[in-house]
């Protein structure tokens, strides 16, 4: 995958978020403050505009632009978290990525989210979708799957991780204020991460 492919991924992610904006916001209304969809959409709209205005010439430059733009435009919790993830991905990215390279990049992103947000698995955050996705990607590639299939496994794992957040009691972010009342709802950030991985499965690998 080259800069163009990865740009397509980001654009597809932006498209999915725009499409699911109201759903994300509704999820965040239930256990947060009702802005996750609006936040992510504002940031990704700016990302798409930035990429169009000045197309980056390497995966690293692409991820850096995505990360900086999200940091500058999203705000809230998801801005620094997604932003840090992409900045870490920029630092880890080679000029062309194969499946394993992409997996390494994605894991750096996950590490960035954890470093910034200090969430552990089971805290009912985006980590609960991104962690399983990265693990599934590694496992599928290790068991010899092609990139496309491995990305699909990662997207499925993200989706399952998101589903698994439903019964959880939140321990990080706004939802944690709710205590027991946060159980019974999926985490909004885990939901947007699922869109990120679905975008990867549909645009990356061949």
């Amino acid at each position, binding site marked *: 995958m080259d800069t163009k492919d990865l740009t397509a991924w980001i654009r597809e992610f932006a498209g999915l978020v725009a499409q699911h904006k109201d759903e994300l916001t509704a999820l965040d209304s239930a256990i*947060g403050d*009702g802005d996750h969809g609006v936040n992510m959409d504002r940031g990704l709209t700016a990302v798409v505009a930035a990429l169009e205005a000045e197309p980056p010439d390497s995966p690293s430059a692409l991820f850096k632009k995505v990360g900086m733009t999200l940091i500058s435009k999203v705000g809230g919790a998801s*801005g*620094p*978290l997604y932003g*840090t993830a992409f900045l870490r991905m920029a630092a880890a990215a080679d000029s062309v990525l194969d499946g394993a390279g992409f997996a390494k990049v994605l894991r750096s992103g996950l590490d960035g989210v954890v470093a910034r947000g200090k969430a552990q698995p089971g805290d009912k955050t985006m980590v609960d979708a991104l962690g399983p996705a990265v693990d599934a990607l590694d496992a599928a590639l290790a068991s010899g799957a092609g990139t496309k299939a491995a990305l699909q496994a990662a997207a499925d794992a993200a989706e399952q991780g998101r589903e698994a957040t439903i019964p959880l009691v939140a*321990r990080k972010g706004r939802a944690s204020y709710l*205590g027991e009342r946060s159980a019974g709802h999926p985490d909004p950030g885990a939901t947007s991460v699922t869109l990120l991985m679905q975008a990867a499965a549909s645009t990356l690998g061949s």
Partner: protein
Amino acid sequence: MKKLINDPATLIQDALHGIAAAHPQLRVDFENRVIVRGDAPVRGKVGLISGGGSGHEPLHGGFVGPGMLDAACAGEVFTSPVPDQMVAATQAVDGGAGVLHIVKNYTGDVMNFELAAEMVAADQGTEVVAVVIDDDVAVQDSLYTAGRRGVGATVLVEKIAGAAAEEGRPLAEVAEVARKVNTYARSMGLALTSCTVPAAGRPTFELPDDQMEVGIGIHGEPGRRRVPVAPANEIAEMLVSPILSDLDYTGGDGVIAFVNGMGATPLIELYLMFNEVTQLLAKNGIPVARSLVGPYITSLDMAGCSVTLLKADDELLRLWDAPVNTPALRRGV
């Protein structure tokens, strides 16, 4: 949704233009959405900045001016500002004595201020200290939450630390004063109705006509529990008790008692609540040394109130009484 706005997308920008027009003594950086004290940076003075999601006005922009904040960053409604804003604010108020970041304890605010501090450290070398405000006893402060939210104490911190900075005290001391206020302040809020975020267009939560939400956050985050609507004296009890059980308020120089309106509650009701609060305090042997009654940290059009009690001592009272000249709080000048 009925609001005096043109478009949710331009609300913040439009309101900032109104603030600039109404308060020529302030400078507004429209690109970065930062409201700055007109004479900033003040040479040799510690700069104080704060910021957060919009929708809590007059917090924070209404507290910019001599004796309080040097700058405030306005985020989208209920969404923490982005680091670029805090960086711009820090630069604008850096008078050579360092800058204090007053951060309400929300994951987003904390992380964005953190990123900003990292960016400032990398670029400019301005000394930055952050103080995180977490006074809301509605939230359990434990490993299992993001910790207490920052609510009413923020106003008191901004006033009192602002006065300390105005005295020319060094950054470490100003930060210490801010932390002291946070350590000795507790708050608890209550909603009679939900707020409506303009971009969402409908109430954040549904609250039946006969119910109220106790322990509400200032972003419409649900509270501790829903209970039937009750008379003001019972409501005061619900707000004051958890505060008093969390901190021993006896034996000091009394309290600074702050009854805050959530945005849609008339002042007459706030005064009535203040009466109930002072009576409860009297019953508990806690004298009221100073008071503040009004809508100072709001939640858009939410009806309800919060109570903040700060255990005071000589130093805090002196700084509280010091002159201040901001759009929302002014005395002695």
